[in-house]
């Protein structure tokens, strides 16, 4: 099944639930009408939260740059003593 079909089925299921709620009027209709908006806004807020948290927790590795420079120096030395013409880069 294509992924988009899965998502659309979810949307259909949620919409059916919403329409049922509207019809059954267990919750006041005025509230029910607004549910989709609440949902979309919550989703948006959740997304922004995830982005914010992600940036704060973004793993960084400054020490890797140092290690890399060591590796590059080691490699250059080996290569130049073994005849690889790495030039003046």
């Amino acid at each position: 099944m294509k992924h988009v079909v899965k998502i659309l089925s979810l949307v259909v299921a949620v919409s059916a639930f919403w329409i049922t709620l509207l019809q059954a009027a267990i919750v006041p209709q005025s509230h029910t009408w607004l549910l989709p908006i609440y949902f979309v806004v919550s989703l948006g807020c959740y997304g922004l939260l995830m982005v914010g948290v992600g940036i704060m927790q973004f793993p960084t590795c400054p020490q890797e740059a140092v290690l890399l420079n060591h590796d590059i120096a080691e490699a250059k030395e080996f290569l130049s003593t073994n005849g690889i013409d790495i030039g003046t880069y």
Partner: protein
Amino acid sequence: MAEEKKYKYSIIIPTYNERLNIALIVYLIFKHLRDVDFEIIVVDDGSPDGTQEIVKQLQNLYGEDRVLLRARAKKLGLGTAYIHGLKHASGDFVVIMDADLSHHPKYLPSFIKKQLETNASIVTGTRYVKGGGVHGWNLMRKLTSRGANVLAQTLLWPGVSDLTGSFRLYKKSVLEDVISSCVSKGYVFQMEMIVRATRKGYHIEEVPITFVDRVFGTSKLGGSEIVEYLKGLVYLLLTT
């Protein structure tokens, strides 16, 4: 004592103007994979800076059976570079990685180990988990990366934490299968590969990797890149 089956690993590295980096990366691969049976397949797209001459020198040093040069006439794109390299790969597994040292060969043993432990079809490197990381990205870059990731996770449920990463180990047959159904270009291609693999039900594992971005100053993320990315997401949403 039973003989442990020894596997061979083909490492495909597409290059364009990586004259110095290719020599460095070959040295580092040999350093970190001492007891492993592997071959390096350099797919060079007609680099004008003499990359192929350096590869030939590396062949003299390390052996033509360990360092293979399978060049092409001009820049023909990443996806086709992998396909081209695959045709010449004699290993049981294929590793794809970048030539510019943003992918460090020291992680190769952890890819191999993870695959042997879990019998995964694909092991992909992730920069976004603990133990992994990125160096050289400013806040804007991190923001777009994280935003893109959240969007992709929400829409695609890809099953991996790092969608655009291109440091991966594949079972050879799995790579052949997945790559034949991918049509995108650039980094959307990397996303398409992993999403299609997830959809096909392949067992995918992740290992943390660190990514040192040495291309300072050049902004690789302009407005057009963002548009391309969004188009890629919609394409993947609809066709996978």
